[in-house]
């Protein structure tokens, strides 16, 4: 049995939650946070999962939960990532392989700006497929680290999200970049 740390003591909200309507400053801060961070949370989850609908649901759900919480945590970005990743893991564990394959096939058909020629369209499709395959083959931690940094998350948030020592995030990021390049180039060489 061990002793509880004395720091345990100050808590921010009651189980019966404070209603957001009574705290307009929270509302304003929430909207600012949403405007600044929703899209990058979505993009991170989209790249991680390859499923835009799932990514949109997870990102939205994380913000809904934050709003229902009625107050902002000390590190809201890390909090949002944590909530979204818990949901993502849960969704992953209940999804069938069949659905994943269907989604990959569908996502390959998404083109925001159609290239001017069939050759370019084909090349873009190949690159997209190769990048997706590279991400899927990367070790989980390196993939998440690379995608988080690509969205501009700070080292402290990356360390919190991945349970890492913040002092070594830079070296690990460099490794993640190298891993991506190696796997991507190997995939390009494959017949």
């Amino acid at each position, binding site marked *: *049995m*061990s002793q*509880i740390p004395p720091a*345990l003591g100050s*808590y*921010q*909200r*009651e*189980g019966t*939650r404070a*209603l*957001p*309507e009574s705290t307009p400053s929270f509302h304003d801060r*929430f*909207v600012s946070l*949403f*405007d600044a961070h*929703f899209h990058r949370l*979505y*993009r991170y989850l*989209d*790249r991680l999962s390859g499923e*835009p609908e799932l*990514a*949109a649901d997870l*990102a*939205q759900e994380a913000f*809904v*939960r934050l*709003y*229902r919480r009625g107050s902002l*945590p000390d590190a809201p970005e890390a*909090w949002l990532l*944590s*909530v979204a990743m*818990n*949901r993502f893991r*849960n969704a992953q*564990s209940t999804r069938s392989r069949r659905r994943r394959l269907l989604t990959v096939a569908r*996502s390959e058909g*998404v083109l*925001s700006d159609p290239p001017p020629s069939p050759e370019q369209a084909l090349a873009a499709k190949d*690159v*997209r497929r190769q*990048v*997706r395959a590279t991400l899927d083959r990367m070790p989980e931690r390196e993939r998440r680290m*690379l*995608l988080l940094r*690509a969205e501009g998350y*700070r*080292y402290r948030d990356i360390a919190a999200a991945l*349970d890492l020592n913040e002092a*070594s995030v*830079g*070296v690990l*990021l*460099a490794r993640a*970049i190298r891993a*991506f*390049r190696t796997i991507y180039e190997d995939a390009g060489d494959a017949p």
Partner: protein
Amino acid sequence: MHLDEEQVERLLHRELGRSAEASAREHLAVCPGCRGRVVQAEQEEEAVYALLRHVDHPAPGIDARAVVARGTHAVGSMRWAAGIVLALGVAAAAFAAPGSPLPAWAKAVAGWIGGGPGVRAPERGAAGIAVVPGRNLVIHFTSFQAAGQAKVTLTDDAEVLVRAPSGAATFTSDVDRLVIDNRGSSASFEIQIPRTATRVEIWVNRVRLFLKDGPRVTGPSVLPLTPPAP
């Protein structure tokens, strides 16, 4: 002294402190080798980020108002649910009170409607709370009790759920801790922990009785809330 890999990355990402960054830039001014490494790291990173953009999909048209509406609706629903639970609790208390005519009335009505042998007493409303566990969640019972226990089960849900079927506790929570004020209570509790939770600890007063660290669980599934034997 040349820049190490951590310093190169931190310089690129503006994660060095102000004085460390100034020192690093002074060094870069006189060291073409380190300057080349920084430029190379930047180019490699940008090349990878450019590739990543190929798998992006158009951003969804969701704005803050829609999310606030959902959050508000959920809060409204919770109010209704709380009201219903309260009403059920009051009804159950009235039903179970000594000398209450309600059981007899209910039995009579049930017999009249269905001709059955009797009516089951409704369950009392249960107090409880559900939280997302995050990376490390501490569940803290503030006090030992004269009687009672906490039963711990692992689930496939995403949230930690703590219930007091007899409803005698106050719950307080934050992102990484959940506090159950059980002073003077003799209630028993049910605690459900997601198997996917990274780390969950359960403390009673100042004693840790349970730890789930990844897949490893240390502690019994039924935790005594009574003080340990001297």
